[in-house]
């Protein structure tokens, strides 16, 4: 008569956690040894009892209560529509600003080329220099006033809107993270 089976083997047998060879050994031993067979049977009953663990019914309205809270919470994983709207607004704002800058710059260039004098005269004649500067800056001004009158405020507004959407999202995430503090382990 070989010695009794280790308890760990009995558990692993129940778990189906043995190699084919080990399982055969255990099976053969159980056929011959009534002590181990009884131990195995009591473990089997324990396993059966644990599987009878009572499950309690959750009230019907539980899902609705959770969903009401979910709807009330302002920060899901940030709705993609909001994110894209924000990004598009920022991009459009930047484009409009760039356009008005180009427009203003071309007005300056027009002002400078309108002056048909020699470049050397500019350095020697302060009055001429002043004239060019004035016409240049008025070009810049008219450029900004022209297209810029509508484009710049619109661009800035869109930019601000986009930044605001982004900021809301960040703030939301930060709030969730601060509250959450996931604890793994311990």
């Amino acid at each position, binding site marked *: 008569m070989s010695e009794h089976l280790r*308890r*760990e083997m009995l*558990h692993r047998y*129940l*778990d189906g*956690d043995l190699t084919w060879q080990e399982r055969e050994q255990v099976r053969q031993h159980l056929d011959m040894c009534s002590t181990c067979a*009884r131990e195995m*049977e*009591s*473990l089997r*009953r*324990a*396993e059966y*009892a*644990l*599987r*009878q*663990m*009572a*499950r*309690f*019914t*959750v*009230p019907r309205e*539980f*899902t609705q*209560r*959770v*969903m009401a*809270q*979910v*709807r009330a*919470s302002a*920060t*899901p*994983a*940030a*709705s*993609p*529509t909001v994110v894209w709207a924000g990004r598009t607004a920022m991009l459009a704002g930047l484009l409009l600003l760039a356009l008005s800058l180009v427009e203003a710059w071309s007005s300056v260039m027009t002002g400078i080329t309108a002056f048909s004098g020699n470049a050397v005269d500019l350095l020697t004649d302060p009055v001429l220099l002043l004239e060019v500067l004035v016409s240049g800056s008025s070009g810049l001004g008219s450029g900004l006033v022209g297209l810029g009158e509508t484009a710049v405020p619109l661009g800035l507004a869109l930019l601000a809107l986009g930044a605001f959407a982004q900021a809301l999202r960040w703030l939301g995430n930060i709030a*969730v993270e601060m509250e*959450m*503090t*996931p*604890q*793994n*382990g*311990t």
Partner: protein
Amino acid sequence: MWTHALTLIGAVMDRGEGKATDEALAVRARDGNHDAFAELVRRYQQGVVNLAYRLVGDWDTALDLSQEIFLRVYQNLHRFDARRPFKPWLYRLATNYCYDYLRRRGRRDRAFTTTALAPTLPISDEGANPETLALQGEIHRAVEEVLASLPPRYRAAAVLRYLEGLSYQEIAEALDMPLGTVKTHLHRAREQMRAALEAKGLTP
């Protein structure tokens, strides 16, 4: 043949929440689909509430905590990696939330009381004859006593295994412990259960 084809077409066309995988639902819920999240809640409310109840020992607290847990799940969906299974991720968040609660209350190691039993009846009514019911009752009581005697981590492992049917691997992920530890925990639960049955004379 035709019925097969129709079922196949039906399966392809059925994009309702009822048959979608947990992971697909989680992704949809993350993108703002409330119906998808409601379906996840329906699938797991029994599991989460029952786990919370076994961990905190009070039914009403378990209901409140579970509600908060699902809200946390929703707010953290953007951290969920859809390539990994949803179930262990959910139970991990749930157990951690319960442990946090117990820590806050400073009674993590306080004895779990079996007197504060859930007001609703367990869902098990197969054998309606009085003798089997009495035996069932006896076994249920023994199980609750054993659970109460186990430390929280062991208890969580046992509940996830025997109530929720998680695999050892899933339990390891949910409780953030090595597979070997999960096995030792569950073997210990089984040994305690065996001893409890012996004490009640329910032995072979």
